[in-house]
């Protein structure tokens, strides 16, 4: 159900942009005002979410340790999975953010009734497709910088060159586009067909998937099928970044407006959704802290010094006679 709703919401968004920028002719609204609004919502929403996390205290040092602690010099420490200092933690975080190291560990349980036997198989598909999804997304975003820069910086041009190195078709096909769509489809199908994942999935899982898929498809449509006027598009996008927004005189295919509208929706949706894992992953206390709280003191800003143990004196008062009788030393004689 959640998947259908999400699909129809995204479809409605497509139709809205199609009709709005086409029939109704609100090109300024879809090409200029909504993108600006989206950017504002994104920046404000993203920052305020990060700030709300950042200003919440981390009362305890609670890394999930994934390997041997640093203790005796002759015992080999696992500095990446159980870091004891800042540099180890940076490496742990880098591996987490750049290579999805925790997901790489993933296993799946197999239960055999005879035996019985519980087995654990390596399960790297999610890791692989998640990695493909995120990296191709990143590449695509970076490639788009050519529309927002003039002259286009060398690294962006290089990126484009390598991304289309297979030289398929005209205009040349970007490999990242293909990988992106395949990865999205995998993530979607997994949600549908893996009964456990299906059971936990809600609309906020399907909606961003469909939205991003629609963005990818509309982008590919305008590039490979509608073959939009890139010069005109760049005129518009450069207008946006230089704060002199214009709707170019040369006509731009309607698919472009659909594309930019969906991107705007994604921007506006982002800060209020699970997509904020992009920021949250950096702030997760179980990953971004070294395991050093036995070495040095971690301070809890709201630690309450008024909470004291039931004192020894009170304990002795309670049991003094029995202690004396048993020959245990006491601080105060009866």
């Amino acid at each position: 159900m959640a998947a259908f709703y999400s699909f129809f919401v995204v479809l409605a968004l497509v139709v809205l942009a199609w009709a709005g920028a086409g029939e109704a002719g609100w090109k300024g609204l879809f090409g200029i005002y909504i993108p600006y609004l989206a950017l504002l919502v994104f920046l404000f929403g993203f920052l305020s979410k990060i700030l709300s996390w950042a200003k919440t205290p981390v009362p305890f040092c609670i890394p999930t340790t994934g390997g041997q602690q640093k203790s005796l010099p002759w015992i080999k420490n696992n500095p990446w999975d159980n870091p004891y200092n800042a540099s180890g933690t940076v490496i742990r975080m880098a591996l987490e953010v750049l290579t999805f190291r925790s997901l790489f560990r993933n296993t799946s349980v197999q239960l055999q009734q005879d035996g019985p036997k519980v087995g654990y198989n390596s399960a790297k598909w999610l890791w692989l497709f998640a990695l493909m999804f995120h990296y191709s997304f990143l590449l695509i975003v970076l490639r788009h910088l050519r529309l927002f820069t003039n002259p286009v910086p060398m690294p962006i041009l290089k990126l484009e060159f390598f991304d289309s190195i297979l030289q398929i078709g005209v205009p040349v096909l970007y490999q990242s586009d293909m990988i992106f769509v395949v990865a999205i489809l995998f993530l979607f199908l997994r949600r549908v067909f893996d009964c456990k994942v299906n059971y936990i999935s809600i609309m906020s899982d399907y909606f961003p998937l469909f939205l991003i898929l629609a963005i990818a498809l509309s982008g590919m449509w305008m590039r490979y099928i509608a073959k939009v006027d890139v010069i005109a598009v760049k005129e518009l996008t450069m207008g946006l970044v230089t704060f002199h927004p214009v709707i170019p005189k040369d006509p731009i295919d309607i698919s472009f407006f659909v594309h930019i509208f969906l991107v705007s929706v994604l921007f506006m949706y982002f800060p209020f959704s699970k997509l904020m894992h992009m920021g949250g992953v950096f702030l997760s206390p179980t990953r971004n802290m070294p395991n050093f709280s036995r070495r040095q003191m971690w301070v809890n800003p709201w630690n309450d010094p008024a909470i004291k143990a039931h004192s020894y004196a009170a304990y002795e008062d309670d049991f003094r006679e029995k202690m004396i009788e048993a020959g245990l030393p006491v601080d105060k004689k009866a």
Partner: protein
Amino acid sequence: MAKYPPPEELIKINYSTPPTSWMDVPPEFKPGNFSYPAKPDILKYLNFPNPRVWSPMDDDWKLPENWKEIITEGFRERLDKYRSFKIFMDVCVRCGACADKCHFFIGGGDPKNMPVLRAELLRSIYRGDFTMAGKILGRLAGARKLETDVVKEWFLYFYQCTECRRCSLFCPYGIDTAEITMMARELLHLVGCNINWILEPVANCNRTGNHLGIQPHAFKDMVEFLCEDIETVTGVRIDPPLNRKGAEILFITPSGDIFADPGIYTFMGYLILFHYLDLDYTWSTYASEGGNFGLFTSDKMMKKLNGKMYHEAERLGVKWILGGECGHMWRVINQYMLTMNGPANFLQTPVSPITGTRFDAAAGTKMLHITEFTADLIKNNKLKLDPSRNANFKVTFHDSCNTARGMGILEEPRYILKNVVPEFYEMPDNTIREQTFCCGGGAGLNNEEFMETRLRGGLPRGNAVKYVRDTHGVNTLACMCAIDRATLPPLCDYWAPGVGVSGIHELVSNALVLDGEKKRTMDLRQNPLPGFEDEEEE
């Protein structure tokens, strides 16, 4: 004790999911899947709200009138106090990587025991009360209203989580269900829904210094009783110091080991080792509990109970503290103690008086783990060991969740074991070290009424034990946790019959050759040593 089905029935686990959305599946309480509520007088003693007689099987849980406000306010307060809680409420993408990492899910198949769904039980309320999308879109945004069934569901599933953190290891954002469960349990305390197996030890620990409510004179009696057994086995008389001021080291270990089989053998192991070393140390009857069920209650209670360690160390004037084999005790010491009750400037960084090794890893807390201490002794050849005395034991090692994923003390116990037993075998890779599986009874759930669920949760561990039993003839599961020593024996009897459970220092002391000892013919359990079986029969 509640009846539970035999293994061949229990193993028929259905991992498929029901057609109804989880939000429409009400919690179902049946004997064996929940722990008994805390007794009213315990709650009164602890000053906890809403003391009353009730049962989870009742329709009416007698919640306070304004329970919704209390929970919502408590929720808000905790979101402001814990970044972990706030982030974990916001960033989950429901990728499902954690789904089959939980031992209760693997052994039971209830989808609400998938860590992601366990967290959604709270998250759905968070969305409804604290996010715009949830307020506007309601169920479409994964939000729901706080109803009494939600509280019941929380009670059921947050007391079906042992805070073992295995899921957190696999989560790409490190979302830690232990954090979430802690918050949920704190919220439940606010309206008086808690379990006796946690709160009675907490109350005992506060007054008598240990979970079992052992009073000082009784503690001394029990120690003496164990010393008599030691004399029977070794011929050496030990007179351990209690509450002695001016000792160099204060030793603290879980009280569970002083009275119950097989923990007592580990306790005897400590006594023997310290006697062997002629260690300048003391026990304390006041700080006679290493474990801290406050960890499973609230941050306040954890701090209060933990405070005894430093309080007693300061009073006795010791230089540093040595801690015994325990799981969650070490999570508290490693990750919470110094923050809650430090700094401990009246103590010094632990230095082994035997080897001179300075343990900088404990420079802050000034508290050393016994396996670090003993591993260092063995490395420096300070122990005369005869591993052949342990030849009857084919040993494997169970990493406790808390020491594995909340500390990372993995090699020290293995190093010791390999030096004191002739045959040591590891269980399969995905079930040990940081991927270790819970005993099924952590986080205060090691009670009898919960046995069926414990055995279900114990399936992954029990099955791994069975594997090494069948392939290598392993007959002993060593562990360094008092709760493990209480929970693993029934687990092994059920899933891997024929495997016994021991502590590490039990095996150390079996192998330790004492000055002036008599010819050893039996181990600490008074079973014959290899080669002396016949004498026993005569």
